[in-house]
């Protein structure tokens, strides 16, 4: 039994890219099938006028329809008449994708450095407020119109990145210099972030013209502009420019990992801290630096949430940062994979809305469906990460040649 588990763990840990894609696809299909059965059976317990009569029970929900809405509804029903590319549903999908790329990258950077940053949410909350406040106050001294757009948006994003970065550096420094576990500190800092921002809001930044807890709106010219002609116009709260920026950032992070000294040191620290120290990496500084970068990315996520979606900071920040953890795990912490995973999450979000409009399926059931898919797709990847830890630690390796003492001991303790 244990031998079996070991060999499975090892095979997962060594799976090639193609293997992993096939595994992910198979997991997706399995999740869809199980979810379909679940939806169908649940239909028997709901009441409805029309449904499938079978064996004395009425099955209210049609799984095919549910999945149709989930996947195609998220794109605005491309198979139906009158479809345009720049529809509202797709805008919602891509808006979500854009924001999750930022928070997913934030988590991925920390994970790759061997740090479990659960604090992206807090960094995003703090970064978002910093963006909104900076832009609102700077708008008073910056000319409006085109110049305002060009000055205020980069300024706002920079403010978000700085605030998020500082807020990420705190648990990094606590980890490096006080040996405080970053999982605990980042979770606590998430709560503190909510408290700080709420206090600041009521103390200084509350919009006097609104009863809701939110800042004053940024001027319209300081919101992320939509691309003329092709762009998703009007009140869709999405801009292709933002998506393009997110994708560029994604590629930039991938490049940072692969090509730079900093990225090399970061990856080495994440995989094997002992080797990083041997190779001259200052472990403490690397911890602070990678947490700062991670926090800055979370802060940028907050900045775009403010400047693209609401045009202001509102107290009730959605759980983009927590979803970023799922996105990153699903992506195997690969920056490019984050893009794909974020898109999948975007589809779920927007498709969930479509299901709600088109069917009687309750949102809770939709949550279960998408949860199942994420669970199934993420699990092999999760076990792979676990397995890799196990395999690396025990230095078991298949004998490429005879194993002097590197490969000789794999499975050697199988009988112990």
């Amino acid at each position, binding site marked *: 039994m244990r031998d079996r588990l070991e060999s499975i763990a090892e095979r997962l840990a060594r799976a090639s890219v193609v293997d992993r894609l096939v595994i992910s696809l198979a997991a997706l299909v399995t999740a869809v099938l199980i979810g379909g059965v679940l939806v169908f059976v649940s239909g028997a317990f709901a009441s409805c006028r029309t449904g499938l009569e079978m064996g004395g029970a009425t099955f209210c929900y049609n799984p095919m329809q549910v999945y149709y809405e989930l996947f195609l509804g998220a794109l605005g029903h491309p198979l139906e008449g009158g479809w345009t590319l720049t529809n509202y549903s797709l805008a919602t999908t891509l808006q979500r994708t854009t924001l999750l790329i930022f928070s997913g990258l934030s988590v991925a950077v920390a994970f790759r450095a061997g740090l479990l940053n659960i604090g992206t949410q807090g960094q995003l909350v703090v970064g978002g407020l910093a963006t909104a406040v900076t832009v609102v106050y700077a708008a008073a001294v910056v000319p409006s119109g085109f110049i305002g757009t060009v000055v205020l948006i980069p300024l706002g994003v920079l403010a978000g990145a700085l605030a998020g970065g500082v807020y990420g550096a705190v648990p990094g420094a606590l980890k490096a210099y006080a040996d405080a576990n970053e999982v605990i500190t980042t979770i606590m800092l998430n709560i503190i972030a909510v408290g700080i921002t709420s206090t600041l809001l009521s103390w200084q930044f509350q919009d006097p013209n609104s009863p809701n807890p939110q800042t004053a709106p940024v001027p319209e010219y300081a919101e992320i502009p939509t691309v003329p002609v092709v762009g998703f116009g009007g009140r869709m709260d999405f801009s292709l420019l933002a998506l393009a920026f997110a994708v560029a950032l994604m590629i930039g992070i991938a490049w940072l990992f692969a090509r730079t000294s900093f990225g090399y040191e970061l990856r080495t620290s994440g995989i094997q801290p002992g080797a990083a120290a*041997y190779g001259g990496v200052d472990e403490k500084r690397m911890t602070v630096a990678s947490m700062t970068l991670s926090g800055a990315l979370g802060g940028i996520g907050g900045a775009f949430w403010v400047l693209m979606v609401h045009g202001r900071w509102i107290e009730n920040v959605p759980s983009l940062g927590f979803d970023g953890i799922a996105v990153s795990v699903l992506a195997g912490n690969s920056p490019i994979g984050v893009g794909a995973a974020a898109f999948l999450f975007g589809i779920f979000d927007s498709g969930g809305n479509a299901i709600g409009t088109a069917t009687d399926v309750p949102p809770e059931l939709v949550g279960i469906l998408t949860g199942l898919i994420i669970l199934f797709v993420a699990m092999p990847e999760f076990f792979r990460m676990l397995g890799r830890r196990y395999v690396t630690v025990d230095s078991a390796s298949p004998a490429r*040649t005879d194993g002097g003492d590197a490969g000789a001991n794999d499975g050697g303790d199988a009988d112990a």
Partner: protein
Amino acid sequence: MSEPESGTTDGTGPTAAVETNTADLNGTNSDLAVHLDGITKRFPGVVANDDVDLRVERGTVHALLGENGAGKTTLMNVLYGLYRPDEGRVVIDGEERAFDSPRDAIDAGIGMIHQHFMLVDPMTVAENIALGNEPTKWFGMAVDRDRIDREIRDLCDRYGFEVDPDATVEDVSVGVQQRVEILKALFRGADVLILDEPTAVLTPQEVEGLYDVLEELTDQGKTIIFITHKLEEATHAADAITVLRDGVSVGTVDPDRTDREALAERMVGREVILEADSDPVETGDTVLSTRDVTVEDDRGVEVVSGIDLDVRAGEILGIAGVDGNGQAELIEAITGLRIPDEGTIDYAGDDITAWSRRRRIENGMAYIPEDRQKRGLVMPFDLVENGVLGSQRSGRFASGGRIDWPGVRDHAEEIIETYDVRPPDANAAAQSFSGGNQQKFIVGREFERDPSLVVATHPTRGVDIGSTEFIHDRLLELRREGVAVLLVSSNLDEIQSLSDRLAVMYEGEFIDVTEPDAVTEEELGLRMAGQRPAGEADGQPNPGESR
């Protein structure tokens, strides 16, 4: 087949060497405890064993000799049920067997003692021996401790082991731990014992003790197969030696009828010069000196106590000692991985006590670490990425924060070629290489740094003879070029033949500093066990002053 005499220095090459006992072996098959017949084991891209025959007579010690990557461990893993052979038969006591797991092999009376012991440190010797095989009483409700004790004492008496069954494993010496492993196999009823590099962790005295144990075991009818790449061990302890090279058996010889040179040639496939040539060289300025360096380990225990040492340009200072006497911590303090609690370290005229590891690397300090899999290599990285470890910010491989990967790749491929890393595949992950080949790559990377000081800990541990010779030559070449070398090794041959001066470390202090030729191996062994040389009872000698 059997030729009359040994020697084989006549240039006919190893294949013409003596084949002993083959007539005997063929004649009396029933006397074979183990017969591996035509074993072939393939792994993706490599044939680890190619039609290997191994005939082990009952009641003998049989050495399996070969370089790293020759296929010794693979062959034994086939015998122990860890691998299934692609071709060939495994015959135990004249009966053909197919093992699916080590459990089957144990049931067939085969026991394996791994190089790294599989013991639970906080448990007692008796508990470790019985673990997984406990006799029970009260219908399986409780472990029958009395019976365990009785059986272990019986075994100890029979084989003359002096082992206290009630001692905790972490409290006993490595030599005793090895005996516990042997007892564990005997307790499970093993008739054939496979020992994987059994001497790698032992002091010379403990090695002698092991030889006695092996003799006692074979006298009592047990059969021993031991894996080694050390010639002395094979010739000293074995009744027959089977040599493997590149996965092929190159014959079985009688150790009494051959000599070391012939064996080495057979193993490597070419002539080998066994003694490293270390004519003294003009030494230059002092490159490294430590004064009163005291280091605590992770638990806060003082493990290095006031060490003074000096290494000059063009000289090799050897530090001998049993592992765990503070060498590791001293070296980590010198190389910047650990901060000394007291004392100063000077390097090329600068006080570097507070320097970062990176700064030390940048200033020409090369370091072959003790733990290659934890420190020396990033195991999931390929050799290209590992080739730049430590130089990732140096001007040679990086500019403007970017790494010059094509340059790094060329460098890695150069190391692979020069240091004969096999298989020569720069794109393969470090973890897929055998220990010896990993070591060769690290040595190559560090030597090619253009260093002014080389700190080498166990530079040839686990490395085969051919590559050991090459690493020693390179080390001496660096020394001739005026590089200072600090060498830590538990291999006495190595440290005696390479060092210009030799310090023996015991419990955090230097017991003795001498010219390597001035002491015998026995004296060294005694000093490694803590016995101070006569007349130097007080104070510890300073290798800086002893010249």
